[in-house]
């Protein structure tokens, strides 16, 4: 549709379209606005929190509990309430954690909403010959609209007339330079042609009239937005990990449950009893507290990341950044400062380097040369840019400038070096001016000189270097005018090539003092019909500009590299500029060459170079179009340093998909609308908080509040840390599952009084274990996590067999023994020796037996022995707390010794005291005997588990010692989780 409209040349009919017609169009095409992506209703979001991932496990547990209770209620007169309570508690845990994470994410999305630009847009429309200001939403196809500098373009328009109109297409194409618009159709591709301006891009300067060709969702921008919302996104890595974890846990639970179900049947229990046991065992495997722990850990990290300018929209994305193995970064604004800055000058036959750092900390050059004074004067005078008013307090580099990017760069450069440009301009009043146009490729102005006694006029000119050189006959060297000879021309060429090769935009500068006899004071300079000398000028120098990299970026890229993360630059810019910036920030590292570089070095054609020799490559968007999928994979696999230049939004998507096909977890940064499909498709889309468009922020998972690439790296670091620490947290939490399950198993198998009850289990999982488990999220990294490779999502799992083996098979077993020891001690000291206990269960739990005999011949009523049993539960509980002290200390590290790691984690120390205090409170607080059936312990019973706690510590320290001494050995293969 657009292509046709490009050549359509009869606007007159439409120009006068009446209100009736516009209304008809408005009804047909709908308002000129992007259809917002279908927002998920709040209740759906809430349900997702309630029923997603980990919660499923708890829900299953809860349902099984209710089922068991129903069976008991149907078959027994006086069913034990344990299963009912457990079901209720499980439900409560899921609902509360669900609410918590829902509110957490709602908070982030509220910050998101604050980004939205709520000001309604206006458009100047010419209808029936009259200019009317209407709401941009009411613009319809066929309207003639007028835009001027500073306006946002209200729809896709075909320019019918323009005066120096330039538009900033950066949000659409990523090109940072404003582009001029004119009525000529220069290209069949609507994106390339000069006569189309796009919806939601900005008109930087000049004015234009245009015919609306597309509105709303049919605009180029609209179609990209639609493409974005149509993309399916995969599961986050952490969601996959949690799924894998659920598989393992379910596997263990079902295995244990079925084993003991069969055992129970063999032992002569009835079917129903065995089913109750089966459910009981399966439910006991559910780590009740883990969901809350994981959520809190992720939230804490999200908060920490927000402090470091990474706002995370989706909690799970916190970890994704840590697993990232490839970052596809935008150039403009993310890697660079997004402002043109003078980088180099060439004068006196020498290249001088200007300071491009953000804080002017770089080296400066010799400013005393007379040539430099001449050059700076031209740059200041032949320049239409000026600072906007009222910014005296702002540092020069941060001031807003009215004018195009290169002129602003010159303005700032001169202001920094030579003081006020305004003063200079006041002293050298402008007499005449020819603005830049594409045919001349130069800009000139004529000024009075500073010296009031000198009545000569000064003509200054800047423009494309080769054009300027053509107009010069002399050159200024060390302040002296010398004839332009071949040698000088060659020097000029070399300098021009060198600066151009750096990806910089080069401008040439020249001047001349017009002879007073030909141009006396008051001479009328005619700029339309040039009546004055514009050749035989004096060449002064070159100045080159670039959008320089941000100061922190090279360091951040270096960190990424040592962290094994591939950084790919994807930009809409020219390959040369892109390559120059890539080299500047280290995306193409020093010493690495592209195929073209090798070809140039060896002086052979590109086709003869073995592509495998080149680690780096720069790929042009048009080449990318012709690549097959295999070729694409080949490039991504075999080049470590890749720059994509001149890429379109669809291509960006192809690049992301290509990386994902190779198994990489891809982070994509972007700010423009054109980036949003890639942002959505990426495992983690990172939008820019300052320069980013709303659409891109919508599509992203994370927002960089300071637009700085370096913030991503801190994000990666946090993400990796939380992955490690979640492992530790899970190892810690899972361990206590064994001392929680084994009592029930022994209760069934050897018919002893129940050593640990449901209430006490919940007190551990949701009480004492909570703070220590969360405190592990604060644990410092064991080694430099930014020095190792990103985790392999297929191999490095959050929870693996080794973690289960350690937690369940080893540490958990020691813990269980500690608990059982306390249990036997209490019963024995009260008169029931272990030999008496085996097989006692039926009598023990019989309410009508009130004279049960113990080992010593004493007789016990039901209530008396139950108090002892509950005291045992309390002691078992306290013992688990005691062995969990050791567990949390050993879980602090996975490889290092605690003595290397230190006990610097204050939250963890607090956690140790907190769980102990909580245990003491639960045991000794009056009323607990009625409320939770927990009883005060004799002081000596607290110490029963101490030897086991000590054993855990020693055992694990020895294990880790062997692990460190013997890297890759059996211990590492079997126990390093």
């Amino acid at each position, binding site marked *: 549709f657009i292509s046709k409209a490009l050549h359509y040349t009869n606007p007159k009919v439409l120009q006068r379209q009446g209100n009736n017609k516009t209304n008809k169009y408005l009804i047909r095409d709908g308002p000129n606005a992007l259809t917002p992506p279908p927002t998920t209703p709040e209740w759906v979001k809430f349900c997702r929190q309630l029923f997603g991932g980990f919660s499923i496990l708890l829900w299953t547990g809860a349902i099984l509990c209710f089922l068991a209770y129903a069976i008991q209620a149907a078959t027994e007169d006086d069913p034990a309430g344990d299963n009912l309570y457990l079901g209720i508690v499980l439900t409560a845990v899921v609902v509360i954690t669900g609410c918590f994470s829902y509110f957490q994410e709602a908070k982030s999305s509220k910050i998101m909403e604050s980004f939205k630009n709520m000001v309604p847009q206006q458009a100047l429309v010419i209808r029936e010959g009259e200019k009317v200001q209407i709401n941009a939403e009411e613009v319809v196809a066929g309207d003639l609209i007028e835009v001027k500098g500073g306006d946002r373009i209200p729809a896709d328009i075909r320019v019918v007339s323009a005066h120096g109109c330039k538009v900033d297409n950066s949000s659409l194409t990523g090109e940072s330079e404003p582009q001029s618009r004119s009525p000529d159709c220069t290209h069949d591709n609507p994106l390339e042609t000069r006569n189309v301006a796009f919806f939601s891009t900005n008109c930087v300067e000049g004015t234009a009239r245009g015919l609306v060709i597309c509105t709303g969702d049919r605009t180029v921008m609209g179609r990209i937005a639609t493409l974005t919302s149509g993309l399916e996104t995969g599961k986050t890595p952490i969601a996959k990990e949690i799924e894998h974890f659920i598989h393992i846990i379910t596997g263990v639970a079902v295995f244990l449950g079925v084993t003991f179900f069969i055992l129970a049947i063999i032992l002569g229990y009835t079917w129903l009893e065995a089913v109750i046991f089966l459910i009981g065992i399966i439910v006991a495997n559910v780590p009740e507290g883990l969901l809350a722990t994981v959520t809190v850990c992720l939230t804490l990290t999200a908060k920490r990341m927000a402090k470091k300018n990474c706002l995370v929209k989706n909690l799970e994305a916190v970890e994704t950044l840590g697993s990232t193995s490839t970052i596809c970064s935008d150039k403009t604004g993310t890697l660079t400062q997004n402002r043109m800055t003078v980088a180099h000058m060439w004068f006196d036959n020498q290249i001088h380097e200007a300071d491009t750092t953000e804080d002017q900390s770089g080296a400066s050059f010799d400013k005393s040369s007379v040539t430099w004074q001449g050059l700076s004067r031209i740059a200041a005078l032949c320049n239409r840019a000026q600072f906007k008013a009222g910014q005296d307090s702002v540092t020069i580099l941060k001031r807003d400038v009215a004018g195009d990017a290169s002129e602003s760069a010159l303005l700032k450069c001169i202001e920094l070096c030579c003081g006020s440009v305004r003063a200079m301009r006041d002293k050298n009043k402008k007499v005449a001016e020819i603005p830049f146009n594409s045919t001349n490729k130069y800009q000139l102005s004529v000024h009075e000189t500073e010296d009031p006694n000198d009545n000569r006029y000064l003509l200054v000119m800047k423009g494309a270097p080769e054009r300027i050189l053509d107009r010069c006959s002399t050159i200024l060297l060390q302040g002296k005018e010398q004839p332009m000879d071949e040698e000088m021309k060659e020097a000029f060429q070399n300098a021009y090539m060198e600066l151009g090769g750096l990806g910089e935009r080069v401008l040439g500068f020249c001047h001349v003092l017009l002879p007073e006899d030909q141009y006396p004071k008051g001479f009328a300079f005619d700029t339309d019909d040039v009546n004055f000398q514009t050749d035989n000028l004096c060449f002064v120098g070159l100045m080159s500009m670039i959008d320089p990299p941000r100061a922190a970026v090279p360091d951040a890229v270096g960190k990424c590299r040592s962290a094994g993360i591939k950084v790919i630059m994807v930009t809409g810019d020219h390959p040369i500029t892109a390559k120059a910036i890539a080299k500047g920030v280290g995306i193409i590292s020093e010493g690495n060459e592209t195929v073209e570089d090798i070809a140039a070095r060896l002086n052979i054609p590109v086709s003869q170079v073995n592509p495998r020799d080149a680690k780096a490559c720069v790929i042009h968007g048009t080449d990318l179009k012709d690549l097959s999928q295999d070729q694409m994979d080949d490039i991504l696999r075999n080049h470590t340093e890749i720059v994509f230049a001149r890429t379109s939004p669809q291509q960006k998507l192809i690049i992301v998909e290509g990386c994902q096909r190779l198994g990489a977890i891809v982070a994509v940064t972007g700010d423009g609308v054109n980036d949003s499909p890639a942002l959505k498709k990426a495992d983690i889309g990172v939008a820019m908080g300052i320069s980013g468009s709303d659409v891109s922020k919508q599509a992203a998972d994370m927002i960089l509040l300071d637009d700085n690439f370096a913030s991503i790296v801190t994000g990666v670091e946090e993400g990796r840390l939380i992955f490690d620490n979640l492992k530790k947290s899970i190892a810690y939490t899972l361990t206590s599952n064994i001392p929680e399950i084994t009592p029930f198993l022994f209760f069934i198998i050897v018919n002893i009084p129940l050593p640990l009850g449901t209430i006490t289990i919940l007190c551990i999982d949701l009480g004492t274990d909570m703070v220590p488990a969360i405190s592990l999220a604060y644990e410092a990294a064991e080694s430099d996590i930014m020095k190792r490779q990103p985790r392999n999502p297929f191999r490095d799992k959050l929870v693996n067999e080794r973690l289960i083996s350690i937690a369940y*098979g*080893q540490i958990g*077993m*020691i813990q269980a*023994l500690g608990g*059982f*020891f306390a249990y*036997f*001690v209490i019963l*024995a*000291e*009260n*008169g029931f*020796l*272990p030999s008496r206990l085996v097989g006692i269960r039926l009598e023990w739990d019989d*309410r*009508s037996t*009130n*004279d049960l*005999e*113990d*080992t*010593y*011949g*004493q*007789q*016990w*009523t*039901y*209530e*008396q022995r139950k*108090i*002892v049993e509950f005291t045992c539960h309390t002691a078992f509980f306290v013992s688990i707390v005691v062995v969990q002290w050791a567990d949390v200390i050993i879980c602090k590290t996975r490889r290092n010794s605690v003595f290397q790691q230190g006990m610097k984690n204050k939250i963890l120390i607090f956690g140790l005291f907190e769980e102990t205090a909580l245990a003491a409170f639960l045991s000794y607080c009056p009323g607990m005997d009625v409320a939770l059936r927990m009883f005060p312990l*004799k002081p000596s019973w607290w110490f029963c588990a101490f*030897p086991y706690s000590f*054993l855990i510590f020693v055992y694990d320290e020895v294990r880790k010692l062997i692990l460190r001494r013997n890297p890759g050995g*059996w211990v590492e293969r*079997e126990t390093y989780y």
Partner: protein
Amino acid sequence: MAKDGEKGDWKEFLWNPRTREFLGRTASSWGLILLFYLVFYIFLAGLFALTMYVMLQTLDDHKPTWQDRLATPGMVIRPKANEALEIVYNITETESWDMYAQALDKFLSPYNDSVQAEKNHECIPNQHFMQEDSGDVKNNPKRSCQFNRTVLDECSGINDRYYGYHDGKPCIIIKLNRVIGLMPEMDGRAPYVTCGPKKEDTDKIGELAYFPPNGTFNLMYYPYYGKKAQVNYSQPLVAIKFLNITANQDVNIECKINANNIPRGSERDKFAGRVSFKLRINTRK
């Protein structure tokens, strides 16, 4: 396609012929890990046994370390009622009360005078029968006092082998749980059991007869020295005969021990120092 692949993966996981792996491990790998766990668990078992052994060494053979949960000894009735502590029977149906009589027969058989005379010692009544150890020299085995069935008189089942169940005057036997070292007394004399009606059943309970007279547990049966030292200890009993209890109605009765060195038990424990039960004698079919 994907499903087939998954199936293949699963099969290969179970047994991978190329690498000779079963469940992802080779035979030697399985061997090593199983050996490790075997050694590890044997070590743990040994350690556990050691700590248990040390703990058992700290225990006294004759007296448990703690007795604080048994401060108020429990009371139990015989014949053993059902879970709800109801003794309900119909006079006209022999089989409804015969089981009670049989239970009591069985319960009382060790108290037969002949058995008691053979095994136990005749003690001096109304004083504690102290048999303390002198220092480290254990005074074991300790002798026990006779409690003869005949003391229960009308409830002994000797004269009336149906214990009064057949004529609506049933006997209930009450015992106080054994607690080592416990010496209950009421102002220096023997503690005794009293029974009374609960709630509004005051007028239904009728007259009661206690055997031995006054329902006392004679002091000579205390203290108890434990199963190991005092093998043939005969637990003293008190029998209560309901002489004219209202028939065809639920009668709630509570019996309690009267001793001033036994604390009142907790409200929750319905059997500490007291016992409640329901008696219902039906006379109609």
